[in-house]
């Protein structure tokens, strides 16, 4: 009895494994293809809208409405771009965007780096409290306090000034910059500071001549992340700026398109002008950006 049982269970196991063997190779062979397919479809879901929009912006109107799904336009026209750059100061908007994005990022990084040095190299009472306080500032979107910020700027004469917006952008991301830079400082051995001090270098000199070169990769990826964030900002800029000559691209685009623009091509063209510079930057430097982003995200 027992032997028979063992034999039968053995048999069934063999049968099972046979069946598995018959199934597994198929699944295993299919799996990479399947994953590849899903990956391609997901990538299309994120890129197709942009490609379609880019091509729509150079299609003549009748093609837009007759054959919206045709990717390649039969009679490309650059009318939308011509009218965009002729009738609206999109070049000025672009320059402003670059100014605000880089200005804000630089303010955050320079202040954040110095503070990060203080946190990394000093132990003092209230240190943890301050660091948590700075962290909680990072979690508060700037948009929440748009109204009191508007009044603050009005009272200090910073309303409708480039300086005001840059300082505000800088203040908003100082916490993030400080946390990320502190992470970088912590990886630099203190012995390096000590030997610099022995050679008679002041702390500031140590920071600028010894630490800074080591921090350049971290600073560059941080700069890219902050630049991208500021480039996209709309809410605060739209409240704090009044003079169209000072508008960044986002606000200028809203000024042009508003809530109910119906010119299809103009909307596509204006959106594309917003996207192309930042997308180009991102594609060239994405390795930098991604490593900095995950590092900052995991650490802070």
């Amino acid at each position, binding site marked *: 009895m027992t032997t028979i049982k063992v034999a039968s269970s053995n048999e069934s196991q063999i049968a099972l494994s046979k069946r598995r063997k018959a199934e597994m190779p198929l699944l295993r062979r299919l799996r990479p293809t399947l994953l590849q397919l899903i990956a391609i479809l997901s*990538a299309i879901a994120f890129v197709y809208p942009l490609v379609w929009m880019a091509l729509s912006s150079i299609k003549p109107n009748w093609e837009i409405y*007759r054959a919206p799904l045709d990717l390649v336009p039969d009679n490309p026209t650059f009318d939308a771009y011509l009218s965009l750059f002729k009738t609206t100061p999109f070049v000025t908007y672009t320059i402003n965007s670059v100014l605000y994005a880089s200005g804000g990022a630089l303010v955050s990084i320079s202040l954040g780096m110095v503070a990060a040095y203080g946190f990394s190299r000093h132990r003092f009472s209230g240190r943890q409290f301050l660091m948590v306080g*700075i962290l909680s500032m990072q979690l508060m979107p700037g948009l929440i306090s*748009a109204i009191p910020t508007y009044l603050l700027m009005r009272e200090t004469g910073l309303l409708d000034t480039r300086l005001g917006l840059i300082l505000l952008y800088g203040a908003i991301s100082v916490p993030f910059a400080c946390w990320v830079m502190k992470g970088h400082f912590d990886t630099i051995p203190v012995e390096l500071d000590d030997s610099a001090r022995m050679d008679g270098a002041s702390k500031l000199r140590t920071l600028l001549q010894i630490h800074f070169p080591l921090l350049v990769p971290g600073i560059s990826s941080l700069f890219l992340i902050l630049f991208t964030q500021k480039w996209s900002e709309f809410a605060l800029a739209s409240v704090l700026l009044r003079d169209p000559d000072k508008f960044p691209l986002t606000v200028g685009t809203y000024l042009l398109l508003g809530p109910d623009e119906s010119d299809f091509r103009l909307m596509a063209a204006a959106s594309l002008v917003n996207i192309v510079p930042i997308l180009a930057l991102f594609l060239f430097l994405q390795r930098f950006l991604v490593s900095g982003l995950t590092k900052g995200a*995991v650490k802070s």
Partner: protein
Amino acid sequence: MPVVQRRKKNFWRGPWPWLAPTLLILIVFRAYPLGDQFRLALTDMRVSGGEAQYIGLDNFYFIASDPGYQTALFFTIIFTAFSVGGSFILGLGLALLLNEPIRGRVVYRTAILTSWVISAIIVGYIWRLLLNESSAGVFNALFDSIGLQGVNWLSSPTMAVVSVIVADVWRSTAFTMIFMLGGLQTLPTEVLEAARTDGAKAWQRLLFVIVPLLKPLIATALIFSTIATFNVYELILSLTSGGPGNATSTVGFEMFRTAFGGDGGGGLGLIGRGAAMGVSMFMVTLVFAILYIRAGVFSRDYD
């Protein structure tokens, strides 16, 4: 005299000179406005100026019984729940996918990440084009090509709600993906191998090994995206302007409309009432910020 001098020297040697600029800019441009908002919420200040009167909690009483604010709050909660949930599931799925050794995964990752660098206000315009209800919109053209009737993506209140959520999921999935991908790459491979040799199926490995290991990171991602989604404004402004009617108006959108008034947005210039809405957004954000900080304090020291 010598004592004073030593103190002075100690001050300059200590941490405060390094921290002062950051603390100063944070206090002036961040902490002060956040606090000032509470004061403003108790006044009837208008954007046009004039003497502001202290009116106690009237602004809060008003918004609590204002149907416009109630609808906006209700929609904001629904929107946040679905958008955070949707983008988390998709983002985690894509992260798991791109963590596999598939060919060209850097290309796929880059393609998906492009949506992350686009400004919310532009994402709104992109989706207004995609969802266009004339024959030019991609979705209706696709429906048409397979013989289905077009959908009123933005002019029907129900569909507008769905559309806004889909657009926001499209925008925020990449963030969750890159966040979780970073986490997946730090997972100890031995643990996953051990689970595999123990015969754990893929979904078991995900639920009982990967998710518990990534719990802190998952909590962080969810809190970050909840804060960002709850305070949404730009996407709504360019995609639907809160419409049709009031169907997709959010608290952030109501705040801006009340205080500053968009183009044709029926702006009232009521700084005080807008500040009361800002206070409500601050309180909700504060809850999630405290959740995040408490989790952080216990799981890692600030060193």
